[in-house]
């Protein structure tokens, strides 16, 4: 807990959450490539090595599979490791440890033990980093029973959710949108852990519910401002936790607005939005006055060229257009 009411960068808030968690519980250790003296590729862990030393902030070899497996082994032996996978695309190398091992430990071994580890990883485009450094793969993890998936959209949430993720006895995939790292947000004093699984109503409105998470919230907010000019009043729900996601909050909002748009940066097809839409087309069917619209990336790998990536990415304009289609 800190006594600040300043504004704090998203990346810094994550660093603070790590530091505070490490102060509170010395079983918390950090593992990752270039996270120690180098402070991580996005500077998130800067200063932690100096503060906590080489026994608690460990530079890992370029071995992602062993990274998560090692974190799991340490978790099963009393530690609370937070592993950083430098880009979410590299999770492809660590899927066994995440999916076959960590996710199944508690259930498969009859509840004898749990796997209290966190895998932090940045996703998303916007840096023209190309098809292997820009993916949003959170839907994969949300499909795997035993994993918790979190994706914050601002500094306070990043702090509070990460604190909760580290305390949680289950394996958590903690997804950080890399374009947010340098952004500043209000950061009030006395941050607390935010319980996993609860969404946040980011904007109250009555005409349409826009469900989103992570970096995409800024497109939703910009669209809401624009739409307000046309007297369309958006309610924005920031999911924060993608698995388990806050069905009740979404349904409550839908019951008020009767219209649903879902927005994320990940590829639309088979993305997180599909589940939200499918669920609302079941339990929220009677509330729906219009088709459910989704906005996500089109079905292509992330292109490199700025000329392409700017069209590839979702945008406020796409949200505005979608909302208008179903509201007017």
């Amino acid at each position, binding site marked *: 807990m800190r006594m600040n009411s300043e504004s704090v960068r998203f990346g810094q808030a994550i660093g603070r959450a790590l530091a505070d968690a490490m102060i509170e519980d010395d079983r918390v*250790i950090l593992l990752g490539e270039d996270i120690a003296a180098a402070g991580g590729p996005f500077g998130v862990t800067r200063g932690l090595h100096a503060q906590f030393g080489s*026994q608690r902030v*460990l530079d*890992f*070899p370029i*071995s992602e*599979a*062993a990274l*998560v*497996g*090692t*974190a*799991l*082994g*340490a*978790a*099963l*032996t*009393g*530690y609370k*490791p937070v592993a950083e996978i430098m880009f979410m695309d590299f999770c492809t190398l660590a899927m*066994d*440890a995440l999916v*076959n*091992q960590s996710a199944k*430990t*508690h*259930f*498969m*071994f*009859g*509840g*004898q*033990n*749990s796997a*209290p580890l966190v895998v932090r990883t940045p996703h998303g485009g916007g840096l023209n980093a190309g098809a292997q450094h820009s993916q949003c793969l959170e839907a994969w993890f949300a499909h795997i*029973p*035993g994993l*918790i998936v979190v994706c914050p959209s601002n500094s306070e949430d990043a702090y509070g959710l990460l604190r909760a993720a580290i*305390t*949680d*006895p*289950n394996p958590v995939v903690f997804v950080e949108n890399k374009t947010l790292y340098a952004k500043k947000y209000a950061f009030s004093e006395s941050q607390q852990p935010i319980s996993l699984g609860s969404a946040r109503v980011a904007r109250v409105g009555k005409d349409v519910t826009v469900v989103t998470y992570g970096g995409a919230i800024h497109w939703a907010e910009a669209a809401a401002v624009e739409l307000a000019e046309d007297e369309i009043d958006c309610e924005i729900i920031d999911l924060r936790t993608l698995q388990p996601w806050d069905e009740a909050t979404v349904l409550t909002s839908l019951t008020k607005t009767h219209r649903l748009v879902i927005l994320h940066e990940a590829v639309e097809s088979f993305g997180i939005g599909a589940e939200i839409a499918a669920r609302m087309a079941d339990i929220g069917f009677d509330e729906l006055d219009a088709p459910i619209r989704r906005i996500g990336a089109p079905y292509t790998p992330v292109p490199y060229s700025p000329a392409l990536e700017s069209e590839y990415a979702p945008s406020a304009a796409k949200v505005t257009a979608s909302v208008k289609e179903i509201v007017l």
Partner: protein
Amino acid sequence: MSDETPTSVPPEPLTFSESELFIDCYRLMKRIRMVEERLSALFADGAIPGFIHLSIGQESVPVGVSRHLTNSDTIAITHRGHGQALAKGMDLTPFFAEMMGKQDGICKGRGGSMHIADSSIGMLGANGIVGGGLSIATGSALAHKLDGANHIAVAYFGDGALAEGIFHECLNLSALWSLPCLFVCENNGWGEFSKTDQQFRGNLKKLAKAFGVSYQFVDGIDVGAVTDASESIILAMRKKPHPYVLECKVERFHGHFEGDPQKYREESDLATLEERDPIIYLREKLIRAGIAPAILEDIESRLAQEIEQAVASALAGPNPEFTTAKSEVYAHE
């Protein structure tokens, strides 16, 4: 895969304290053997579902290694891990109940043979993924090292797992960080239906050395050799944390899984397996050393009784309920 070829030394007389030790080993190896033979029969009878992989012929390895482990030492075991689990101290009734998918199973019937675990004795879990336990043991060794309490982690793995890249990553990491991880290769010469020399061209000794990791070969026919080797290795690891590779040459007597008719195996190979049976080998050693056969038979009959009791009580137990299972996907604080 290894430089050395297994040797078949004839038994020699024992001192009294040696015979104490060896009777202990005999009891434990025989226990594993009889448990697995019982499993084989239960499987044939349909009382055990799924896949089971028996370690018959390989018992000397976990028995020799586990003698030197406490419950604070951790082990990650393989799909062929019954012996590894029992040698570490897993109780028979929850073991059998797990195989049968019963509520009283050590994992409440959710894991089965490929996924037994017993955290009360430092047994982190069996693995259905070849090589899946290597990094878990490595991470556990990291925890031990950070604890500074002289415990070690053991990663059991088969020769087939040598081809998985994770082995390389774990060797490197444990060498780099001097982690107290003992990599025990149960080299039975086979990966499923293929000989390992058709799958792996590396030399394990040289591979370990390439990372500066110490290596020792023992012939698993002799539980004494396994015990001796592990003793000095583990002692040294406790004194000063470092990784170690222990390769044990053993034979897989049964098929890859129960029900595998092993058509791919030479008649002559199968016919001569007995010569490589670590239990027969030890029995002869004990007899020659003057241990009365009656002592061994007594051990066997006690084991039989213990096993039958465990089987009966496991069989009598209830099936698990899905609603309970479903509520335990996530741990709660």
